[in-house]
């Protein structure tokens, strides 16, 4: 990207949209969901966004369904669409392809971004013990209970059909809590995902809500 432009994480934050890819994969191969390196947070006057400035590499894993696919040079192509912003925003689209047999054309870049991939929460010194959702009319407070220390920061994953004001996330010793509102009154929140930051390392989690209470 040109200097100071940025694209968005899978949860873009209060504004923005994430990258979308449609893949064309040959028979006998499957491709994973996008694997995101740890993003940065941008705060513009209380509007929070998560994304990548200047440079980003989002990964996806290709798996041959069986050994010996028999295709000499399988090609994967992708139509990618993204929004890139600096002061204004531009919606861009591009198509690209790669021959799987080729060796990695940019090993240093891949390695640099692989280092930025979040670890699994299983490796985290701080554990999530439970997650509650307490509802009062149309407002749900999600509380993540932690054990083993506190976290320095938390980036929530995509909230689905719920409104989340990212500046209202509160991190205290032992808990992370934030209010959300459902698009439709009857919706219940079922799971929470995101990144926990401890000593400069990001740990990725996805957990089911254990306790859904109405008040």
């Amino acid at each position: 990207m040109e200097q100071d432009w940025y694209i968005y994480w899978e949860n873009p934050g209060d504004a923005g949209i994430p990258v979308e890819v449609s893949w064309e994969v040959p028979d006998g191969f499957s491709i994973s969901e996008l694997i995101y390196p740890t993003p940065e947070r941008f705060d513009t006057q209380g509007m929070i966004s998560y994304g990548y400035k200047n440079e980003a590499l989002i990964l996806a894993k290709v798996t041959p369904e069986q050994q010996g696919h028999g295709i000499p040079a399988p090609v994967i192509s992708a139509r990618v669409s993204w929004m890139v912003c600096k002061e204004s925003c531009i919606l861009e689209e591009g198509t690209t392809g790669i021959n799987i047999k080729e060796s990695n054309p940019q090993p240093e870049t891949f390695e640099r971004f692989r280092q930025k991939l979040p670890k699994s929460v299983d490796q985290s010194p701080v554990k999530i013990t439970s997650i509650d959702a307490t509802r009062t009319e149309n407002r749900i407070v999600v509380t993540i209970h932690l054990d083993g220390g506190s976290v320095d920061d938390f980036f929530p994953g995509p909230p689905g059909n719920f409104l989340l004001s990212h500046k209202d996330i509160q991190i205290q010793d032992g808990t992370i809590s934030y209010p959300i509102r459902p698009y439709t009154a009857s919706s219940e929140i079922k799971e929470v995902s995101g990144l926990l930051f401890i000593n400069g390392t990001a740990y990725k989690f996805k957990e089911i809500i254990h306790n859904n209470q109405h008040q």
Partner: protein
Amino acid sequence: MNQRVMLVTVMLVIASMVALADGPVIGEKAPDFTLEDTHGNTHNLSDFEGKVVVLEWTNPNCPFVVRHYRDDLMPALQRKYAEKGVVWLVINTTHPEHRDFETNESLNAIFEEWNAAYHAQFVDLDVIVGRAYDARTTPHMYIICGNGMLRYNGAIDDDPRGSNPHSERVQYFQNALEQLLEGEEIETPETRPYGCSVKYTKDT
């Protein structure tokens, strides 16, 4: 009123508006405002009491807004609901030094070319009304009922890229407006808006 009292009053008013930065609440009174439109006429929101009012935040330099106008989606909605007595107000909250800022003449020309059919477009130069409504993107849609209560706040639909055929998109805003006009409960009164961020400062 002496100058000192006036100054304190102004500061208190501004402070209370900043405190509203969390945005208007569904089912509560929508914040009143006074703005000048692109033809130099001043209106208050309260001038339209008794009517259903739509507020549409816009920025003609935003690709999401461009798509909704070029594909005739927004103008079609504006025309349709004007016939049903809805007052459709467009609000442009763009910092005057931001590169997306357009003059009144330019706005009138652009929206005329797009066959826009709104009642008026207001220029929110002090960005106060945007802040009062916590307007975050362009487009960002609000529906206010005849009593002045906020009934819808959020996205125009569920398809930021317009990648699905029009008939397959969930029309959050239009569904809410139809339900309101039919006297039904609004099933989905609030959604996360999509679009470019509103340009509150010259650098955003």
